[in-house]
């Protein structure tokens, strides 16, 4: 399964403060670890929202609003796309990340929809699969 791992913006990141050399070194090492573990599919840092824009939808109307945006905590400063086996594994990897900001900061973990994400009928379908699996195992035993 895939996760988007989102580094939340802070006052510093929104002000365009560049990371210290020490943080850059630690982050490079961390990114190398992610690549070596075979889980990293993508990852980028984002410019402050002052360079961004928003398009607001209201029925057929489209309003363009230029950055910067006020609610810093809701903004993002960067992201990764990881392929891991579970949400817990993503959490474990995030815990190993160096603090991405000079002050307090937050990283959010969100699962990406997959082709085989289960729908509402998950439970009956799963039961059916379990039944098939048991049959298959019986068949294998007879071989």
């Amino acid at each position, binding site marked *: 399964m895939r996760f988007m791992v989102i580094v939340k913006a802070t006052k510093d990141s929104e002000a365009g403060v560049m990371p210290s050399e020490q943080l850059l070194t630690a982050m490079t090492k961390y990114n190398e670890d992610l690549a070596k573990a075979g889980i990293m599919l993508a990852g980028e840092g984002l410019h402050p929202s002052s360079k961004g824009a928003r398009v607001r939808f209201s029925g057929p109307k489209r309003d363009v609003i230029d950055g910067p945006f006020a609610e810093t905590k809701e903004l993002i400063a960067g992201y990764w796309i990881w*392929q891991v086996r*579970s949400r*817990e*594994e993503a*959490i*474990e990897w995030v815990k190993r990340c160096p603090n991405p900001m000079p002050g307090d900061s937050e990283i959010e973990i969100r699962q990406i929809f997959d082709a085989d994400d289960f729908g509402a009928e998950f439970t009956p379908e799963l039961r059916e699969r379990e039944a098939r*699996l048991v049959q*298959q195992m019986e068949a*294998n035993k007879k071989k």
Partner: protein
Amino acid sequence: MPATETHAAIDAVWRIESAKLIGALVRIVRDISLAEELAQDALVAALQQWPSEGIPRNPGAWLMQAAKHRAIDHFRHRQRAERKHEQVAYELETEQERAPDFDTALDDDVGDDVLRLMFTACHPVLSADARVALTLRLIGGLTTEEIARAYLVPEPTIAQRIVRAKKAIARARVPFEVPRGADRAARLASVLEVIYLVFNEGYSATAGDDWMRPQLCEDAMRLGRVLAGLAPGEAEVHGLVALMELQASRIRARISRTGEPILLLDQDRSRWDHLLIQHGLAALTRAEQLDGASGPYALQGAIAACHARARTAAETDWARIARLYAELSRVMPSPVVELNRAVAIAMAGDPAAGLGIVDAIADHPTMREYPHWASARADLLARLGRSDEARAAFERAAGLTKNARDREVLLARAREQEHS
């Protein structure tokens, strides 16, 4: 944190750390079974302590420390301790006194340990099934139960397979090392084969299968990327990663909403996974830089890349695909490769030349009953306007296939020939 959450977190830590942990332990104790036992003991200790004490800041180092303590206990308590074992116990103790900072110790050597572990688990002394099970267990961090579910076999079968594999490695005195020299290429081929077997097992999963099965594709890609990181100079490793990622990029598009397979040329290319394509193409570039992407995996990856690069089916560079198949036929001779080359040549505009190749492999025992050979030949005859022969060939292909839906399609094409 509630106990169930801590257990889930411990599972995750295990997934991340187990290969490094077991690799390092095998290096020290020189015995896979014992190393895995010690690692499991450390895991049990974590399951006992972490729910109450919390997850340590560096869980990998904690597990390593715990396993080393067990190792020391183990060697001390062995009644008939041989000199060799005393020596190991002594080394363990001095190592601990000398280097309490397991952080660095872990980071220094672990890469090589994991690579050694991969080569050992994939040693040709083992059957392919045994290599697969051992690799998923030791390097993939999968439990026996997970492997059994993915392979639709009972758990005891896998457990036994793993035990036997470990014994076979011990019996054959397989050294815990990364092979060098002449041996290396063959041993690496064995590792690559295992990873690709795992991938194909996942790729062949069908709708309704246990979700563990398609997950095998991700496990295989991950193993491939780990190997690429550990052996970055090996072109074929990058070739295999490219091949797997480019094939996996089409997983979403290859089955219709009603569960029927969609052939590559009919797929909705907007549903291909462009992130994986980008990754696969980058891996292929690395293989090209290293040796011109001349090995079998890289060549297959290059063929997959021709499809990935074409924005529409009509834009496919069939001439290049035909050349790549010719090269593949040279390094990995096989009638199936020749059959694919024939189709590519026909697609590139020369069905007569394609038919010549198809007929040239007609006598090969694997082709005689192979429905794809029969249907490819029928298709080429139809393209050449030889309707009567094409109709007979489609009917023959329909008689060979075991797939009901394929049979319908082939019989429909046979009927079409009467009207043309």
